[in-house]
C-alpha cells in the first residue's frame, strides 16, 4: 500500500504535467493562461511537498498573483473573446514534437546513467529568519551581492516598462 505522501506527490505531478501539456496544446488563449496557472500552482505544491514552504509561497505570490494576472491582462487587452488561435501547420507541429521528444529522451538517458552523490545527512535550517540571514550575509555563503543586483534589475525593469508603456502624444509623429 502506498503512503499518503506518495499519493499526494503523484497527484501534484499529474496536475503539473497535464495542465502544462494542456496549456501548450489548447487553442483558446485564455484557457491556456488558466492551465498555465494551475501548472504553476502544482509546482508550488511540489515545493510544499519537499518542505520548501518559503519557495512555495514566493512562487504563488509572484507567479499566481503577479505574472499570471499580468498575462491574463494582456490577453484581455489584445484578444477578442471567442476567437480561437489558428492551428499551427502540421509540419511545424511534427518537427517541434520530434525535437522535444528527442531532447527528452537524451536528457532522460543522461539522468538515468548519472549517479548522484548520496546526500549529506544533516538538513540545514530552512526557516524564514535563516533564509533572511543568508540572503543578506556578505561572507562566503552569503547572497548580498546577487540580492542587490536583482533589486537593481527590478528597478531597471520598472523604468523600462514605464518608458515602453508611456503613450506618445497623438499629434507628434
Amino acid at each position, binding site marked *: 500500500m502506498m*503512503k499518503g505522501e506518495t499519493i499526494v506527490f503523484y497527484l501534484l505531478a499529474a496536475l503539473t504535467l497535464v495542465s502544462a501539456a494542456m496549456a501548450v496544446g489548447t487553442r483558446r488563449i485564455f484557457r491556456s493562461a488558466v492551465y498555465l496557472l494551475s501548472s504553476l500552482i502544482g509546482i508550488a505544491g511540489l515545493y510544499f511537498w519537499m518542505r520548501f*514552504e518559503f519557495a*512555495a*509561497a514566493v512562487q504563488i505570490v509572484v507567479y499566481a*498573483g503577479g505574472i499570471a*494576472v499580468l498575462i491574463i*491582462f494582456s490577453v*484581455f487587452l489584445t484578444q477578442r473573446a471567442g476567437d480561437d488561435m489558428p492551428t499551427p501547420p502540421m509540419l511545424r507541429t511534427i518537427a517541434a514534437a520530434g525535437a522535444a521528444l528527442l531532447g527528452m529522451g537524451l536528457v532522460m538517458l543522461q539522468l538515468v546513467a548519472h549517479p548522484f552523490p548520496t546526500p549529506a545527512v544533516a538538513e540545514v535550517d530552512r526557516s524564514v529568519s535563516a533564509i533572511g540571514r543568508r540572503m543578506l550575509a556578505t561572507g562566503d555563503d552569503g547572497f548580498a551581492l546577487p540580492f542587490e543586483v536583482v533589486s537593481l534589475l527590478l528597478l531597471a525593469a520598472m523604468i523600462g516598462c514605464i518608458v515602453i508603456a508611456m503613450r506618445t502624444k497623438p499629434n507628434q509623429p
Partner: protein
Amino acid sequence: MWNLAQLTDLIHGWLYETFPPAWALAFEMIIVGIAVIGLFAGLGLVLVLMERKVSAFMQIRLGPNRVGPKGLMQSLADTLKLLVKEGMTPDGVDRFLFNLAPFVAMIAAMLLMAPIAFAKDFQIWDLNIGVLYVTAISSLNVIAILMAGWSSNNKYSLLGAMRSGAQIVSYELSAGLSILTVVVLTGSLQISDIVTAQSNGWWIFKGHIPVIIAFVIYMIAVTAETNRAPFDMAEAESELTGGFHTEYSGMKFALFFLAEYINVFIVCAIGATLFLGGWMPLHIGEWTAFNGIMDWIPSSVWFFGKTFFLIFLMMWFRWTFPRLRIDQLLNLEWRYLLPIGMVNILLVTVIAILKWHF
C-alpha cells in the same frame, strides 16, 4: 479551563489508538474538512444577516424582520431560495471556465482557513510562513474573478473583472506592507509566534503610532481587496449591472457571494491576529485582578469578538461612504497609501532596531 487543546488531543489519541495511522490521518482530515465547511455555512448565514441588519440600522430602517423571531431566519430562507433556483449557463460562454470560476473562489477562501488560530492551541496548520501563506493564497482570488469575467462573454463582466484585477493587484502591496510592520516587530511569520508576542499587550497599543497607521492602511487595503464598498468597482451595480457575476444565478452566484463573506471574515481574522492580539485576552500592566477576570473569558470568545468588531468596522465603511471612481481608486493607492506605507515600514524598522517598543 476552556482548554480546546484537551479536546483535540482526546480525539487525536482515540483515533490513533483505534485505527492504523494512515486511516487515522485520513479521518482527521475529514473531520477538519467537515468542521471548515460547517464554519463556512455558519459564517455565511451570520454575516449575511449581520450585514443586512447593520445596513438597516445605519439607514434608520428595520431590516429583515419577517422570517423567524426578529428576522433571524432570513438568511436561511435566502439560502433555500438560492439552492432551488435554476443554475443557468448562458449561450456563448466558455462553459468549462464559467462553471469552474465559483469553485476556484471557494477553494481559495477555504485554503485561507488553514493558518488561522481560532483559539488557544486550536489551529488547523501552524505553518512557519503563516502570514506569507495568507498573502499568497489571497492573491488567487483575483484569478476566479478574472475567469468569471472573461468566460461570461459579456462586456460588463469583462470590465468588472479588469477593474477588479487592477484594484486587487495594487492594493495587495499596501496590505503586504502593513502586514510586514507587525512581522518586523515580532521577528516571525508564524501565526502562533505573533500571537504569543502580544501576551503583554496588543501590537496596536505597544507599537506606537506606526502600527496604528499600519492598521488603518491594512483596513483600507483589505476593504479594497475583498471588493467591498466603497471600493466595489468590480460589481458596481449602478454602472456594471453586477460586474463579474452578472451572468451567474442560483448556486453558482451563491458560491461567489459566500466566498466574498468568507474573505471578509478571513482578512478581519488576520487583522485581529496581527494588530489586536488574536485570541490573547486584554491585559493591562500589573492589574492582576483585572487580568484574571480577562483570562477567565474563553480565548475563542476573544478571537471572534475582535474579528466581528473588525467586520463591523468594514460594514460601517460600506454603509457610510460613496463608491470611488476607478482613477480615484488608483490615485488613493499609488499616491497616498503606498508611499505612506513605505515610510511607515522604515519607521517601524527603526523602532524595532532601537527596541523602543515595549
